[in-house]
């Protein structure tokens, strides 16, 4: 069947040409974005990033991991074989056999995709994505059939079958080849691979990378106002989205019914980069915002034409979406970039966010407090104040919680433990200013940089070995955000230090006198941002507490709702995020939620009605200090 072979060759090359044209068109769109260094070496790293980093995420759902392996692996193998055998017109039967085998694997995978999609979870997009199992199966079946047609001796039957099979192949190839150019579902394959190569945050492949890019304010860089303000590789990254909705399922704001859905946000940005409206979006909308009323273009302002401000202000910057995304898309970076533009060019922030930023500029505290009052909690504790010229081991940065009578209990408990362990520590007193974390997450880079510079200069006045803080936001700011501005410090969370001390025996701990059941809530800025999920658990274990884990914990913990300035912007939803989290805690039957963050303490304690008691790890530890004889 010579003509069938030639036809396949033609189909192959037409498909390749279509793909190439589509890719060029898409590249043009990406190139609308701002410049970013092109890391060609990243292309070489694609296989490793695919097999290691993506697999690491996808493997959490083994069903879809195996299915995707079968479909994508089968398809890639089949395409490669067809490229060699038909693209180069070799027409070797043994290659046909291999092709057939690869397509068969793909067909089986497609079946499982179809099976999952018969009763899909709400997070999955419908629309074109629903046809994917069929077009992929069509492609696989077309390949299998045509291979058979070429392999078996020609007969009337094969002749009769060849044409429909060829049409099946064409249909399947169209899905694959048109995807990138026409923005179909298979766009993800090409964009996803390129995205792996040109990832805007390539540090994440070698370690944890959560720092935000500092803006060059003097050069007029005020974040992203229109899609073309994103760097080109960010635009590319949006195209990689497979609309799996893992981010949506993880997002606390979405769960609380606030008008945010990270998946929709990424898709809106795709709409923006390619011009169009969101009417074709076939997934869950932003709660409360109907689909079809927003449109965008590369040079059109994102807010409010494409995305409502409330969507951006709902985000707690918890990074749950980033943690879950199989395509390694960086939602939080996009949200912060957009917020930056709103804050720096319009200053229009909802709720008490504007007031908070003014407080930060004018008093160096979020609450507008007198910095001289920051150390009031310690008046009777005989806590040293850092003095220039005197070396201390630990500089204790207490954070904004010091102004809150509730959180002062935590601080006092921490001091008790530090003293018990004979740690040489000092506080900053009235020269401690807010790190600027809240300002930065609210997009006020100017205020953040002002505070960061002030703090870096202030830290330089003192001699200390390391900084310890009970506030993960302080921790993250100092550890991850300050280096880019020239501040390099060894920073530890109090739980990390206490766990080290407990392990080394420097801190003697008895069993906790409180026998109630305990669950532990991972603060996002400690767990996901800084990878510290073990120290708090080790510490609890050391005082004889067995943590009853919540369904979402550790690196996949659910946010308390307190990050990113979200409590200030306070976008209304159906529910409050901390209510959901307390629900998680109650489900474990625990009577105590252990926390390690002033913000989590405040959020979880703000929940109305019957709820477990909220205690900081430091409080639980202090309770277990042996009573001095």
């Amino acid at each position: 069947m010579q003509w069938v072979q030639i036809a396949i060759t033609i189909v192959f090359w037409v498909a390749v040409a279509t793909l190439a044209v589509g890719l060029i068109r898409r590249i043009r769109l990406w190139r609308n974005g701002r410049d970013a260094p092109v890391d060609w070496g990243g292309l070489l790293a694609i296989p490793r990033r695919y097999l290691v980093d993506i697999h690491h995420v996808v493997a959490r759902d083994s069903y879809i991991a195996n299915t995707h392996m079968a479909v994508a692996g089968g398809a890639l193998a089949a395409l490669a074989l067809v490229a060699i055998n038909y693209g180069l017109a070799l027409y070797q039967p043994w290659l046909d056999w291999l092709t057939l085998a690869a397509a068969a694997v793909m067909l089986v995978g497609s079946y499982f995709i179809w099976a999952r999609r018969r009763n899909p979870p709400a997070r999955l997009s419908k629309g074109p994505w629903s046809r994917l199992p069929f077009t992929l199966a069509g492609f696989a079946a077309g390949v299998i059939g045509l291979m058979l047609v070429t392999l078996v001796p020609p007969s009337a039957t094969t002749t009769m079958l060849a044409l429909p099979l060829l049409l099946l192949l064409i249909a399947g190839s169209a899905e694959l080849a048109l995807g990138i150019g026409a923005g179909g579902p298979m766009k993800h394959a090409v964009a996803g691979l390129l995205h792996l190569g040109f990832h805007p945050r390539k540090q994440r492949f070698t370690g944890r990378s959560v720092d935000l890019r500092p803006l060059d304010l003097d050069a007029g860089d005020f974040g992203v106002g229109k899609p073309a303000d994103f760097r080109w590789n960010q635009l590319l990254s949006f195209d990689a989205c497979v609309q799996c909705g893992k981010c949506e399922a993880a997002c606390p704001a979405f769960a609380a019914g606030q008008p945010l859905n990270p998946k929709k946000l990424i898709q809106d940005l795709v709409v923006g980069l390619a011009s169009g409206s969101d009417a074709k979006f076939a997934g869950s909308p932003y709660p409360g915002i109907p689909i079809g009323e927003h449109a965008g273009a590369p040079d059109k302002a994102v807010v409010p034409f494409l995305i409502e401000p409330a969507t951006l202000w709902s985000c707690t910057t918890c990074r749950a979406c980033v943690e879950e995304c199989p395509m390694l898309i960086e939602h939080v970076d996009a949200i912060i970039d957009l917020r930056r533009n709103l804050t720096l060019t319009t200053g229009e922030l909802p709720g008490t966010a504007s007031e908070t930023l003014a407080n930060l500029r004018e008093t160096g505290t979020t609450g507008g407090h007198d910095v001289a009052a920051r150390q009031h909690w310690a008046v009777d504790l005989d806590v040293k104040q850092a003095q220039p010229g005197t070396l201390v081991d630990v500089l204790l940065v207490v954070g904004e919680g010091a102004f809150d009578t509730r959180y002062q209990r935590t601080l006092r408990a921490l001091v008790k433990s530090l003293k018990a362990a004979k740690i040489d520590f000092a506080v900053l007193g009235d020269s401690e200013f807010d790190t600027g974390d809240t300002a930065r997450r609210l997009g006020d880079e100017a205020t953040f940089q002002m505070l960061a510079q002030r703090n870096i200069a202030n830290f330089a006045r003192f001699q200390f070995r390391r900084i310890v803080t009970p506030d993960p936001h302080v921790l993250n700011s100092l550890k991850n955000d300050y280096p880019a501005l020239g501040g390099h410090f060894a920073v530890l969370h109090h739980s990390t230090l206490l766990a080290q001390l407990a392990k080394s025996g420097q801190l003697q701990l008895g069993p906790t006198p409180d026998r109630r059941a305990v669950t532990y809530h991972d603060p996002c800025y400690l767990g996901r941002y800084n990878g510290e999920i073990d120290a708090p658990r080790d510490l609890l274990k050391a005082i004889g507490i067995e943590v009853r884990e919540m369904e979402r914990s550790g690196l996949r913990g659910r946010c308390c709702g307190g990050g990113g300035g979200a409590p200030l912007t306070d976008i209304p939803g159906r529910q409050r995020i901390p209510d959901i989290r307390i629900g998680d805690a109650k489900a474990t039957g625990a009577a105590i939620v252990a926390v390690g963050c002033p913000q989590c303490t405040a959020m979880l304690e703000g929940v109305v009605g019957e709820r477990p008691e909220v205690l900081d790890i430091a409080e639980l530890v202090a309770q277990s200090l042996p009573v001095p004889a």
Partner: protein
Amino acid sequence: MTATARRIAVLAALGRNPVSGKARPNRDDLLALELARQLGGDLTLIHAGNPDEAALGDYFAYGASSLDLVPLADGGDVASALVTRLAGYDLILAGSRAEGGEGSGLVPYLVAETLGLPIVADVIAITLGDEATEVTQALAKGQRRRVRVTLPAVIAVYPKALVTPRYAYARRLAGRVTTYVAPAMEPVASPWHREAAKKRPVKFRAAETKSGHARMLSAIVAEARGGAVIAAGTPADKAQAILAYLRLHKLIDW
């Protein structure tokens, strides 16, 4: 639209954060600026004071695009300095009170008097017409009053006017300052001497006529401010205590 062609001046003082004392745009003047911005028109901010004060730049972040600066030594006559730059405006807006220094709230009145213009204070909303402007005044207890005033006019904005000044850093970089020559003015020594605020100012009262016991009683009442706790007694007694407190501080009149 005649309204957009209006020339509007906003008088801007240097303010201070009450907690930290850090210099900042004067809160009340920001409200005036924001109201003026909403009116549209040709807007100029006018400040008399130290030309090197960096915090003035924050007015740009709050939406002013140009600032006319009349250099003036500390304690100088602000109103007279301002008046040198105020010719030809249709509307002159000011905040109610400067938070940086004396904060007498007199400046807009002195400006109006010097220029022979009408002045309306406690304004929360402005509608511009051709010959006159209609303003809404806030009165006690949240009452409102509409007033029509001929143009040009001076308007002092109510300190709790429901407008929200917005700080946008990008605008800060775009502002333009024009510094004028300092007007020749006789330096006058201020009659005022500043000191830290007292918790409780001394009341002006007649030479002592009360019995020693009454004196002590009133001393207790004064001291008890800032945290009297009443635990004993019946709820009715306690209700009376609340009313007594309200009466004592003239918060109710019955």
